């Protein structure tokens, strides 16, 4: 099982730092999943759901053209209960450049199949995975990690989170010693 995991993980790691430095290896990633043709995605949401989604979608429209910016798409999907990685979202958006992310806009009809794609292939991480993952940073082996350490981990590894995101995330989670019971923490995160 280990090698299988490897194959999947390796490109993920490679692409990550490259994104910040130079978007050179990205075409390679584009070429890799040719299956991502959104026209083949069948939207299976009920009309009620679609109505809800449309309303939510509308909430993100700051301009009033019934569209949202590319860089808001991820947040809408998340607001609608999904947990895609940034990379996955970029993939469904057709791997746009940073300027496109900020400048391009998307209408609801184009958004739906994207959401459907994410829903079809949800984030498979489990509570246990995360607890085990965070246990690595448990220096004392007592089920807690230091908040400061967790901030560094989330801000420097993987898809680095911004300080604002981390602040919003960690609000009220640290105890008086600045440590966090990570089982409770993960449970809390996954409850909403």
């Amino acid at each position, binding site marked *: 099982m*280990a090698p299988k995991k490897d194959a999947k993980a390796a490109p993920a790691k490679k692409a990550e730092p490259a994104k910040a430095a130079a978007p050179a290896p990205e075409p390679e990633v584009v070429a890799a999943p040719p299956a991502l043709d959104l026209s083949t995605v069948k939207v299976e949401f009920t009309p009620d759901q679609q109505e809800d989604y449309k309303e939510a979608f509308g909430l993100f429209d700051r301009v009033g053209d019934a569209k949202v910016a590319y860089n808001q798409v991820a*947040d809408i999907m998340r607001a609608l209960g999904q947990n895609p*990685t940034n990379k996955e979202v970029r993939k469904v958006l057709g791997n746009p450049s940073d300027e496109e992310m900020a400048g391009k806009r998307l209408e609801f009809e184009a958004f739906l199949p994207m959401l459907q794609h994410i829903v079809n292939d949800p*984030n498979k*991480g489990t509570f246990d995975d*995360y607890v085990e993952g*965070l246990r690595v940073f448990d220096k004392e082996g007592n089920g807690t990690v230091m908040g400061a350490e967790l901030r560094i*981990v989330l801000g420097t590894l993987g898809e680095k989170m911004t300080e604002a995101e981390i602040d919003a*995330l960690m609000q009220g989670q640290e105890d008086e010693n600045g440590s966090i019971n990570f089982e409770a923490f993960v449970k809390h995160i996954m409850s909403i």
Partner: protein
Amino acid sequence: MSEADKFLYRDSGKVANPLDQADWATKKLVWIPSETLGFVAGSVKEEKGEECLVELADTGKKVTVNKDDIQKMNPPKFSKVEDMAELTCLNEASVLHNLKDRYYSGLIYTYSGLFCVVINPYKYLPIYSENIIEMYKGKKRHEMPPHIYAITDNAYRSMMQDREDQSILCTGESGAGKTENTKKVIQYLAHVASSFKSKKDQGELEKQLLQANPILEAFGNGKTVKNDNSSRFGKFIRINFDVNGYIVGANIETYLLEKSRAIRQAKDERAFHIFYYMLTGAGDKMRSELCLEDYKNYRFLTHGNVTIPGQQDRDLFVETMDAFNIMSIPEEERIGLLKTVSAVLQLGNMSFKKERNSDQASMPDDTAAQKVCHLLGMNVTDFTRAILSPRIKVGRDYVQKAQTQEQAEFAVEALAKASYERMFRWLVMRINKALDKTKRQGASFIGILDIAGFEIFELNSFEQLCINYTNEKLQQLFNHTMFVLEQEEYQREGIEWSFIDFGLDLQPCIDLIEKHASPPGVLALLDEECWFPKATDKSFVEKVVQEQGNNPKFQKPKKLKDSADFCIIHYAGKVDYKADEWLMKNMDPLNDNVATLLNQSTDKFVSELWRDVDRIVGLDKVAGMSDGGMHGATKIRKGMFRTVGQLYKEQLSNLMTTLRNTNPNFVRCIIPNHEKKAGKLEPHLVLEQLRCNGVLEGIRICRQGFPNRIVFQEFRQRYEILTPNAIPKGFMDGKQACVLMIKALELDSNLFRIGQSKVFFRAGVLAHLEEERDIKITDIIISFQSWCRGYVARKAFTKRQQQLTAMKVIQRNCAAYLKLRNWQWWRLFTKVKPLLQVTRQEEEMQAREDELEKTKERQQQAEEQLQEFEAKQQQLNAEKLALQEQLQAETELCAEAEEMRSKLATRKQELEEILHDLESRVEEEEERVTHLQKLKNKHEAMITDLEGRWTVDIQ
């Protein structure tokens, strides 16, 4: 404390940096060889067949390197690791990098498995104070950062615990710090194992033990190009302990004193320190007593007075003399020593001339000879004759044989060297006597060996052969120890494993040097040649080639013009030897006529130095030296004399026997640069030494086994993440868990072994696991980050939705107001509203509420008062109760008194009655008295009457 900590502990903050970890994993960092830096870091960009495209980390240049030249880099987790055996990638580059990293951070000690590697810091470090000694006392090796104290303490504890003798072996190039570290070992032991517990009052023995060093250094050390205080001899210090672990005595054995330093020095070098101490420090009285002269008058001090920056020879002379005092070496012995030193210098001033019509030597000016004889207590005429025309045995007769100028000069030099050596040996013997006077029985000992490491010069001579031979044997001892220890660990852990005994690897080379026969080794052949008439260095080489030509460790020089005579392939590398003067060096001949004179010297000290003169090789025995065939023809019986090679072989074999019976601890000293500069490390120089002193060899052997071992619990904690679901929930014993984990990891069965408490891995396997773990963690983190982002987004969205709802409410209200605003009824309503009763309701309510508030206040006041009164009442009640109690008590008292009173009254009554009775009795008695009186009166009357009558009657 913190000052010293800097030089002991690596800064852990940097180690935990997850960024470095990520960097290492993504960039595939490796080491590639570099001309100047040893190795440089680079990241593998592309692999094509046998070659790799590597981008250098600091310059960004891309180079193509052969795959075999690439050495793997360790994960940053191992940065500045304290024990290099833990390194998962064990290679030259990583070892060098780790040592360099630590050295630059001021960490000079590093473990490498069984070794402790120490790099000369060339500056003072605050890590040798008594506080630090206390810190290391009784701690296990892994509990404290690497230090010579840790090694020493370890040896001391094992000695106490296992009752096994210990040895600490310091080897390394000149200037690497062997002697300094040896001193630290002694300092530590003198502190820890002293029977005198207070710090100030160190025991005399401990003091003497510490003072032995300055004396030995004064006489046995000198300045060389590499090292201002270079020990020109090897030594083995044996410190004996009693059963309680207290020092009871010590013994020093010395090896291979470079006695030629006494008569000749290379440029920028000095003879032994004592020459300079004495010439600078001696007072006028001593100067005349010792016949001292000015520096420039001595031929043996090749470069006159060479001084050492920052060292005052005058002060050191006083110090040395003080040390003699502490050693309780008396004045006359000290003078004896110095006289010999002075005599050695004077011998150099004896000059000879060739006589005009013959080859004979003559001595036109015998001032120097007179001084020598004065100092050594000889007759000048006898001495001069012994030098110029000694008596030599021919057949059965003795004849006088005139010497040539060269022969005379050689004889004098040999005499000077021999005198110095004998004096040094005597000194060591004397120190030993001083250190061995306690009567307490020694139970075990710790031996400290301080001896030069491998020497590989361009051309090497007999001295190098001796020292390299020694190191070959010491390395063999190390390999064997390592084999035994590994074997034991594997056995303890129950691992199936056929270990190769690397201790035997070096045997062919040792045989090549020391074997007696079939085929005889180099030393044996040399001895044989010495006894062979007309043998020369050349004939010796021919013999060696003939006997050992096929030995794989032996090589003939490739080309004829090659200046080397033969090569020996030592484990540290190929060494070229030049056999010039080997016969002479091996025989070390001496003018036996003079030796006899010295033996009979009028000076007690001198005659003691030359006590045994029967086994020295006389000048006449040296075939090569004799000019004609006349004496050379006498074949000398083997075994009659002892050659230098023989003596040394014997000494070494004794040492090895001693060491083999001890538990050895290895300290490898490394010189970082040849400029005596602090903070500078020349990579190639260090690499060369690592190769020579067996650190890399040790690693090579390590790689054959399972160098990475990790205890079950740690293995599980660190790598469980790689094998999700492999271990069922709930308790599971460590070993079982690890078995399951390894099964899930699908590792090749040859890559690991599972022992009783640890998992063993081949080199590099852990690095691979580490890498996978890294990728896995990043994977999980990304997934978790997505959840976190989802959480944050949903929280924000919920907030926005709530805001939306609120907004809608406000909107509705606003819309309603806009509609109503202009409706007449509404306007009327707003006008009328203040007039309505209903609108005043609020005011009324307010008033009521105020009233209520006031009432409440009043009530509260009343309540408070009530409470106060109640409290007062309670207090009064209590008082009343107290008074009542008092009253009761009084009443009781009163009743008691009343009762008493009545009792007394009754008593009075009774007594009165009695009185009354008695009164009436008195009355009665009185009446009776009266009555009797009356009776008496009556009777008297009667008597008178009768008397009267009687008288009457008579008449």
